[in-house]
């Protein structure tokens, strides 16, 4: 009898402990409390230890004079600028190399990826070799390869290699004439923007017309004519305001013109080549992922190979390609911190120098981590928007 009573009692007590809702809330609360306590403990510990070690802390140092120079800067910077500005310069350098790398890696990646599916044996094999070579070498070695293996063995400045259009290549980098815009050159920019806007408009109209009537319109040639022709017209109308600053030989280096330093060049090329190998595989997987029936159906409708790829296969492949592509973009951005090995002044290098000049190790590392995190989240956000636009629209 007694045991029966106990059995009858248990469900009511058990239902409280076993209630998944309450249990869920309880464990989440425990995790949050432990996490907050851990973070608080670490923060307290850091503060206490910094005080005990008599190390100055806080972010006030960002407003002090930096005192060191940076070789490459997208914004005005001198040794009189602040540490904060120095870090900004580093951040911009990271962004520049990441964006340039992402664009190039995507282009190479798509070409190689599609090339791997080519019917031409030679193209297919070349693309396979490319992927296997670059995918299986650590990125740091690829950077060293470009820096020490390719760019460092170029001739010294006095024996520069002359390239067309007054460009020069030597171990200090690639020099080409810099455009100097005279009065009235704003007209060219306006014409260019106008050309792009008109090309977009033409493309839209042409698509609408094709949808309605089935007639096609040579969008590509019209757009090219608009985008190139209008600025040229403006250039002529405003009296040819463009002149060039040519690189010239001086005591030590070539001066004038525009210099692309070997540090940037090798990092950019290495990151592009390396990431492109992964992108190629993603693209190949995406194209393979599109049902063969789609291609066959398109062919049955009378489309040629080019339009099949452009209009049927790739739009569907993109849905498979974009999510892993985002990861590759993030990898490329983060791999750009390998710049430190060859002295390209990226965020890691400059924040590291600042960290060392000021001794603010904790703050320096926090800044670096926060900036990389923000950059990665931004990239993800942009790619998510692209992904949402590409996603299958169900009617």
């Amino acid at each position: 009898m007694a045991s029966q009573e106990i059995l009858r009692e248990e469900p009511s007590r058990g239902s409280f402990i076993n209630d998944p809702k309450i249990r869920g809330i309880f464990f989440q609360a425990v995790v949050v409390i432990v996490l907050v306590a851990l973070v608080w403990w670490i923060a307290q510990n850091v503060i206490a230890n910094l005080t005990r070690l008599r190390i100055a802390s806080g972010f006030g140092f960002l407003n002090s004079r930096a005192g060191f120079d940076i070789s490459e800067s997208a914004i005005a910077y001198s040794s009189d600028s602040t540490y904060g500005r120095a870090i900004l310069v580093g951040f911009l350098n990271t962004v520049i190399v990441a964006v340039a790398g992402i664009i190039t890696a995507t282009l190479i990646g798509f070409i190689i990826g599609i090339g791997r599916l080519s019917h031409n044996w030679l193209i297919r094999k070349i693309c396979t070799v490319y992927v296997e070579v670059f995918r299986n070498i650590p990125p740091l070695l690829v950077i060293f390869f470009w820096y020490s293996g390719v760019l460092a063995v170029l001739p010294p400045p006095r024996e520069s290699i002359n390239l067309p259009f007054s460009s020069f290549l030597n171990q200090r980098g690639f020099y080409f004439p810099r455009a100097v815009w005279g009065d009235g050159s704003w007209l060219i920019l306006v014409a260019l923007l106008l050309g792009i806007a008109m090309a977009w408009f033409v493309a839209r109209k042409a698509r609408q017309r094709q949808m309605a009537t089935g007639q096609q319109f040579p969008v590509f040639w019209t757009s090219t004519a608009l985008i190139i022709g209008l600025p040229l017209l403006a250039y002529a109308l405003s009296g040819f305001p463009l002149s060039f600053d040519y690189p010239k030989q001086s005591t030590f280096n070539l001066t004038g013109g525009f210099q692309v330093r070997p540090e940037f060049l090798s990092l950019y090329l290495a990151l592009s080549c390396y990431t492109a190998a992964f992108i190629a595989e993603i693209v190949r997987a995406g194209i393979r992922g599109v049902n063969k029936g789609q291609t066959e159906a398109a062919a049955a409708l009378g489309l040629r190979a080019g339009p099949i790829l452009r209009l049927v296969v790739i739009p569907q492949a993109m849905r498979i390609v974009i999510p892993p592509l985002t990861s590759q973009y993030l990898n490329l951005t983060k791999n750009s911190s390998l710049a430190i090995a060859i002295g390209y002044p990226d965020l890691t290098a400059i924040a590291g120098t600042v960290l060392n000049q000021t001794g603010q190790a904790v703050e320096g590392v926090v800044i670096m981590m926060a900036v990389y995190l923000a950059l990665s989240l931004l990239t993800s956000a942009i790619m998510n928007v692209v992904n949402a636009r590409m996603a299958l629209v169900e009617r």
Partner: protein
Amino acid sequence: MQFVNGRQRVGCDAGFREWAGTGSCVHTEKSQVRLKKTEKGLWVMKHIAIGILGAAALGLVASAASAATLDDVKAKGFIQCGVSTGLAGFSAPDDKGDWQGIDADFCRAVAAAVFGDGTRVKFTPLSAKERFTALQSGEVDILSRNTTWTINRDTALGLNFVGVTYYDGQGFMINAKKLPGVNSALQLSGAAVCVQSGTTTELNLADYFKSNKMEYNPVVFEKLEEVNAAYDAGRCDVYTTDQSGLYGIRLTLGSPADHVVLPEIISKEPLGPAVRQGDDQWYHIVKWTYFALLQAEELGITKANVEEMKTSDNPEIKRVLGQEADTKIGTDLGVSNDWVVNIVKAVGNYGEMFERNVGSGSPLKIARGINALWTKGGLQYAPPIR
């Protein structure tokens, strides 16, 4: 054998047990990571890890750098000494892997003072960028790494410099074969200049070119070896660092005879060892080890004659060598009374150390100059040991 490979983890178990208390095992583990630098690809990862580990160590290894460094050092049985990654004459491994140079010998002198045995030192090679974090976090006990003494480092960085083991100044080196017309730093406008990042050198360089209204093109690397390689490959026209360093680096270049050091010295670079703030006893031991080296030279005590000097009639020599009756000089400092004898036996006096590593006994052949004793017109001067 100087435990260079870090495998002889003498105090590790004890340190591990007391991790929360001393954190000494963490040091050993980390120095092992550091020393596996033959794998070139690893170092960048390591570099980033150092920053984070350093920051984490500052916070997490609660009292690693607790007041009594001497007790920690005695417990683990050796001194962890932060040196450069390889600068001839100051700290560089020889063909047997033993660290040689003034900075390395200074750590041996401190080990001799503490343990009576100059070999009880483990060396941690540090880049310019890692060095302060390594000392602050307790990873090394002494930073003896051709480091310039500045007010900022003495205050905001939480360090204490003990003295100046080498008075240096920043200079420039060029390849005279490629640039035959250049014989002064003032002709360097427009040049590409190789420099190591995170150094006072980098700051002096910016100041010098700015004050002389000259342009330059900085080519900045984090590691000394990378700067050397870039200069040797012709990536830059000029190499700038401390002048002693230039002489040392010149020896490692492809054709040393082609390179000349320009006459200008653009800064004061007093190089010396540093310890953490907040531990006066350890600070005093390291500081007076330096003074003892100078005092020994002043009194003519050398590695060869230190034993016979013990029986000298000169009261000052007897006092310095701890042969006075009821002397307490050594024990008050926290070491044995014959500490100076041990130091001199281990590395000789300051003059011997200088000549062996950078002076006439070395390939560098640097003259004593302002590093001579005050009695010979130099700047090296020790307060009396009494």
